[in-house]
């Protein structure tokens, strides 16, 4: 079987799996990294949102063969290390606002929020209600309002 090499949460990994297996299953079923969740498998629910070289991606829609050895995949498990802390400021904001209910969507929500705040910061402007309206992650527990509050707070500390 073909080998695929890339980086996950700061470590080089090599997996032996067919080219077209999507990254989500390589992470979850082969590497045992279960923070990214399955909610649809077709890139619409965003529960699996993770980062690829610091931008938000959905691993359920990425064949593992698309990855290069230098590509850095960051899942929720690796997010704190990107800022060298126990918790990323966005995770702390999530705790402060007691956002999570069942928690199933929240790893994806946090990863999407961090990427959004970075993108807005790169554009040199403050986050708006319209930016928040543009987030597509589903929360079936309906925690959207606290998510909005937490993102605004987390952005201030990023």
């Amino acid at each position, binding site marked *: 079987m073909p080998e695929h090499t890339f980086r996950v949460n700061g470590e080089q990994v090599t997996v032996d799996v*067919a080219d*077209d*297996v*999507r*990254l*989500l*299953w390589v992470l*979850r*079923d082969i590497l*045992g990294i*279960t*923070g990214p*969740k*399955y*909610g*649809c*498998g*077709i890139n*619409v*629910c965003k*529960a699996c949102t993770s980062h690829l070289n610091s*931008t938000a*991606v959905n*691993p*359920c*829609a*990425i*064949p593992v063969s*698309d990855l290069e050895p230098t590509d850095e995949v960051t*899942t*929720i*498990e690796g997010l*704190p290390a990107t800022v060298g802390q126990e918790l990323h400021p966005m*995770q702390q904001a999530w*705790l402060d606002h*007691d956002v999570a*209910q*069942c*928690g*199933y*969507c*929240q*790893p994806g929500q*946090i990863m999407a929020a961090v990427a959004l705040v970075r993108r807005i910061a790169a554009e040199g402007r403050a986050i708006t209600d319209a930016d*928040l*309206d*543009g*987030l*597509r992650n*589903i*929360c*079936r*527990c*309906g*925690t*959207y*309002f*606290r*998510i*909005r509050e937490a993102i605004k707070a987390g952005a201030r500390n990023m």
Partner: protein
Amino acid sequence: MTGTNGERVGRRRFLGYVLAAPTLVTAAEFGLAPVAASAPAPASGAQLPSPDITDVIDLNDMMTLAALPTSGLISVEVNQDGTVSFALPRAEVGQGITTSTAMLIAEELSVPLDRVRVTLADARLELVFNQLTGGSNTTFATYTPIRVAAAIARRRLLDAAATELGSAVTDLTLDTGVITDRSGRSVDIGALAEKAASTRNQQVPVELTARANFTVIGKPHNRIDALAAVTGRKKFAMDLDVPDAKPTMVCRAPTINGTVRSVANLGEVRAMPGVTDVVVISTGVAVRAETFGQCVDGVRALRVTWKPGTAEGKSDDIVLRELERAELPLGLPSPMPTVEAKFTFFFRGNSALEPNCAVADVRADRAEIWSSLKSPIVAKQTLAAKLGLPPSRVTVHVVEGGGSFGRKLFFDAALEAAEVSQKVGRPVKLMWHRADDSRQGRTHPMATSRVRASYLGDTVLGYHQRHTSVATDLGHGLGEIITATAAQLPVGDIGFSETFFQLSQTMSYNFGISTRLLSETDKGFNTGSMRNVYSPDVTCARELIVDQLAARMGKNPYRFRRDFLRDERSRAVLDKVAEVGQWGRAMPAGTAQGIAFHAEYKAVSAALIEIDCRPETVNRPIRDGVTGPRVTKVVFAVDVGLAVNPRGLEAQMMGCISDGIALALTSSLHLRDGYFLEASWDNYFYTRQWNTPPDLQIIVMPSTSENPGGAGELGVAASMAAVACAYGRATGTMPTSFPINHGTLSFTPKPTVPPIPPSPTDGLEHAR
């Protein structure tokens, strides 16, 4: 005898147990119920009273009553590391009951919240009716027994410390898990865990902390599982590492509940990369593989001929006609002036974000199952019967769930996982694809509600509601509870759906003679009791009629409700939202306020909604999403009697509001030719960020009771109703069909063969 706050101390005295164990274990009987809340105050003013069965008994009372004859104990264990363990015989699915449970223990035991470890108990057959998570009953039913067990532990620890420190118990204080005597010498409870243990079971009396002295209960606390949730460490069923439990998915029929006639290419699919097993099961063809991705490919490659399902050829229109035929008469028309209307509520999906899933390891002589289960005892009994094993050989672990909304009262995935594991002789990790979950999963049944109210001058003479629904499947344990207790209830000989209906609905207004009846038809659908069950639809219909009555009497909707509500507690929440939400403020054309009230689970709630129905808002562009009217503001007031964790209660109301908005405006399933068109979240329009109110205020009213009411579902009804009322006022037309956008299909339906969509390959192009 009267306590400091005027309460009889006798009401706080209970019997519990110290159990024989190496470290301190204390226990209480589950049936220990708080004294039932008193009936509402008698009707006031000139309005005609509406006596209601729920004044005497409601669903919560019935579930608590059902528990009385059983003697299953729940126990609190003090560990040597100073932590306290408790296995909660309920399912945590996001509602925050592990946190509120930890708070009860922290209160009575004087330990910090972070020293309390709450896990979910495996299925315990001896608990009989007592391990069902539903009807928002958890806190109500567990409030007293958990505190009793914790309070006994506290007493035992103080006794042990007295011996240890050579002090009188009265000279000791227990604070944050440490016992200190007058001279300042101290000992941690962990060091006393063994010394306080008992070598025999003994019954002991204990007195609970008075409400006035609470330091934990009633104060806002963050969730104890929040850190695990935000770090990705929280483990759901599909995250468990059960040896050799490999990913498994099922190829399902193109129509609801269709079954396999034949498979043309079993061998071919068995040879696909990563695939280990392909077997025909009662619900389809199961594919077990190294990864779920390879299961998806295997399922898509199968060529199956199907037998018809249980809703063959049916579409929305056909079911609507069935409902019409099943409608019960409203009685003779009143000679007085009336308002009358009929409302339609289409099928809605109750999928959680975590799809149906379970891990199963079935061997010849035993089985072990892991799944998020709200009725694990019924699951265990059913699994044992299906597998041909004695129940004692079936272990059922309750895993924390990624949402429920009624879905996890059932155990469809656990049954399938067990069947597949038995057939292939190996452990499986079985998950439904989202398309399965959406098209073959449980739904909230389609229903209609016909309402007639008659009035004269300023008096409402009568209110009659006939709710007609596709049958709701209650066969998950709640049904057994109702069957077992219905005979003792003053409702006559009616089925358990009707009993459930009667007990969960209340007439909150002085509307004279009031009747409500449920009629069910068509058992061909996979249904379940979605969050708040009948109440959102029933209340939505009622509140819209209330607005009509108000208009006829020339009163505004707030004033009218205020005049007709039956008690002070109800008026208080209504007044609160009117005041905080500035009821009646001037608003631009095309926007409006709506107000609604709902009482259930010994709680009362009111919602004030502002909605924007102007074309520029309704038609704002969102890719693959439904925009529609925007709820711009929500003010919600709730009184659950005693709120154990106000922050958790606010969270539940926030979720309920998201649900209410979706039910009124955007979310439904379209039935066409025996299947639902919706196959994923880009078809089923649950509330999203672009539908979320930017302004949301939730007010938890000061405690009005010694006992907590239910909270997990309470807020859906008033939210949905207030959105509907606001929409009617903004557009000038009362909506009668829900959700309001059901008539417009906002997506291209995905194929039904293969039953699940391909996995996309263009993820990198969408990196942001």
